[in-house]
């Protein structure tokens, strides 16, 4: 064996393997969204599913983004015909219950679907802890540049889109994003009570780095 040559040859493999390793952390089908870092499009939508316990909003109540100022908002677009939405449902419902009483608002938005079907789906899935609103004509979905469902937007306390997740979310992602957004809101509030929007998290946060789960792919 000529170990000198062997080690030189082995070294050439490193960048290739590194590239693939990096590539695995990306989703090639993910489409970059121009929204992260920007003010979230406003909306006013009617509740069709009230949610449970203290998170309840009465059916027919109108939810306005402007009214949620000061809260971290988790906006989840879903549909009853969407298979991957089933995967993330339990995670979202549980996380919403965990954050009960904190300045966090979870909100489901029904996409290209009818409220009746949505209600039937929720009861089939064993309930949804947070309220869901209907988006007739997918107007809001278009404002948010939706490509499909599920997609989840995390808005900071100032109403900016901090992060967008394509495909089903995991409890870990939700916790990470919500906790950091709440921490940012609190520190901004304690340092300068009249917080400027520039203190909103951006940079690494404002990136779109999700992957569809194994289940979503295997449904093909």
């Amino acid at each position, binding site marked *: *064996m*000529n*170990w000198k*040559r*062997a*080690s*030189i*040859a*082995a070294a*050439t*493999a490193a960048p*290739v*393997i590194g*590239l*693939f*390793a*990096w*590539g*695995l952390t*990306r*989703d*090639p*089908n993910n*489409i*970059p969204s121009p929204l992260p870092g920007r003010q979230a499009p406003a909306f006013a939508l009617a509740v069709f599913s009230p949610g449970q316990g203290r998170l309840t909003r009465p059916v027919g109540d109108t939810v306005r983004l402007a009214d949620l100022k000061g809260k971290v908002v988790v906006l989840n677009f879903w549909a009853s015909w969407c298979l991957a939405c089933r995967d993330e449902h339990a995670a979202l419902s549980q996380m919403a219950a965990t954050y009960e009483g904190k300045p966090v608002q979870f909100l489901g938005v029904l996409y290209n679907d009818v409220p009746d079907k949505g209600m039937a789906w929720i009861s089939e899935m064993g309930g949804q802890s947070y309220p869901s609103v209907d988006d007739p004509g997918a107007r809001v979905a278009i404002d948010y540049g939706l490509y499909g469902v599920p997609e989840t937007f995390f808005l900071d306390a100032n109403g900016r889109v901090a992060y967008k997740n394509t495909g089903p979310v995991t409890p870990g992602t939700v916790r990470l994003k919500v906790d950091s957004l709440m921490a940012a809101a609190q520190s901004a509030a304690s340092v300068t009570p009249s917080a400027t929007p520039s203190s909103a998290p951006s940079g690494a946060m404002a990136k779109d780095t999700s992957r*569809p*789960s*194994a289940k*979503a*792919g*295997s*449904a*093909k």
Partner: protein
Amino acid sequence: MTRLVASNAILVAAAVSALGALLTPIAIHKGRRDWLMLSYAAVYTNFVLVTLATLALVWGLVSHDFSISYVAQVGSRATPTFYTIISLWGALEGSIVFWAWVLGMYAAAVVWFNRHREGNLVPYAAATILMVALFFHILLIGPANPFQPVVPVPFDGPGPNPLLQNHILMAVHPPLLYLGYVGFSVPFAFAVGAMLAGEVANDDWIRLTRRWTLVAWGFLSAAIIAGMWWSYEVLGWGGYWAWDPVENASFIPWLTATAYLHSVMVQERRGMLKLWNLNLMVGTFVLTILGTFLTRSGIISSVHAFTQGTIGYFFLAFIAVVLLAALILVAGNSDKLGSEGRLDAPLSRETAFLVQNLFFTVFMFTVLIGTLFPLVAEAVRGVKVSVGTPFFNRMSVPLMVALLFLMGVGPALPWKKAAGAELKGRVLPGVVVGVLLGVAALLGGARNGYAVLAYVFAGFALGVNAAEFVRGANARVKAHGELWVTALMRLVSANRRRYGGYVAHIGVVLVALGVASSATFKTEQEATLKPGETLTVAGRTVRFKNAWGREEKQRQVIGATMELMSGSRVVGIIEPRMNYYPTQQQPVPTPEVRSMLSGDLYLNLMAFKQDGSNITVKVIWEPLVPWIWFGGLVVCLGAIIGIWPSRERQASRSGSANAAAPPMTEGRA
């Protein structure tokens, strides 16, 4: 029950593979050759166990046992039994099972044929192949486990992906591809075995695997052609090759394998290019694994890609191990692989092979770089890009044209040094055919320089390769006074590898003519028609009769009845359709193709009014496209001729001292 049998069989097979692979170096180290029998036995046992698991999965599919996760994922009671069986390779987990089975089969066969050979080459090769098998077993136990329990057991499943159950070619393409891909594990294992055993300086690993390489190459060639055909018949866009990453993944190792088949002859005849050939063979295997990784990990965006969770990381680890081990072994052994001969003259077959190898290598890197570029661009510059057909066409068309030319030059040139007068006689028929085809193309309206050159060189290669048969047969007629047909048969059977190669060349020419013609002379038109209205494309007229709908067991079909006209007479009915599967948002286009010797009339239903009052149909005239599929068959015929054991040689061997050598390990030609 079925599920338990299958999953336990895989567990035991993994253990057996690991033990067999570990036992080999220990046995050799301790000088206990009797232990080697145990590692050979591990290869056979592995095959039996994987066969058991595969059969169990097929049984699970056929008996609609939805307690097995794979069956629950791809099975449905409405799917016809035939498509239920072939859905074995319709999704990721099942295809890995099938892969493991093919690998087990190759391993068992190669060990069986070489079981009496002395030395450490075969044991190390068997250990290598067992390691590869172990990797696939780990996939089946971990991230791609098809045998997970499903609770509660569903009554029915969604059925296989509609695109995959819409056409019969889906029964053919994937198994051919796996037989091709996995087949390259055999020469790879022997190359690694030779390096581990310190026998790499002699050519035994090449001689023992010569047929296996050709078998794998033949299957891969057939798979690529079948894949093109499938995409043509099913996807409805009228094309057969889109440089999609999944297509490229099968094409890249084909390029290195084809280069190897040629350059290995230089090593056998002249003792040159040893290190190069080793690189090509090891590279081909690495590229098959890389191709699988790219398409199965979802790392690159593709129409066909399976997006999966963690399996990518397993593949990455495997590629890292294979790549590092291969590079270290090859580079570490490179000292021993000096050249015995030299190039004698610039005009010789060696040189032609050398240039051909250069072009194939450049071709391979072009396709590889184009495929990986989106990944690199995103890593380096953070931009999302895709590399489309224009790049690949611009780079590959000149290469393909040049390779067509070389395909005519190579067979005309003798080894070592060409003599002028003889060369003239061998080249002349090619020049005549080439000029004729070139003129025909110009008269037909071809104005693109590369297109015309493609016709000229295709004709040239056709002439030269065909003339080799005529020349050889004539010589035999003269020498032995045989009938011409007899002489031709004996000529081919006495030198199967050489003439099999020429047959394959002729097949490639047919493919090239089909590709060049459909690229140059394709005409298409799309129109919205009311009943009774006609559309004429390239002189062929179709009339829209009516639209209809039909309910079938597993799908609903909307179709349009189109009449093929000759004057005012109806000479045929063509019915393009759209198939609606309940689990699919989009209908699956189902074009209908009317094939003639001169080309295909390709009809695809694009849209229709809900009441059937009008339809939009695309009609494409695709000249010479059937020649591509026929040419593919001829290429396979060439491979079969090359693989077929030669009777004369078998007879001569039975009398020789080497009587124990099994048929797959015949001596140097």
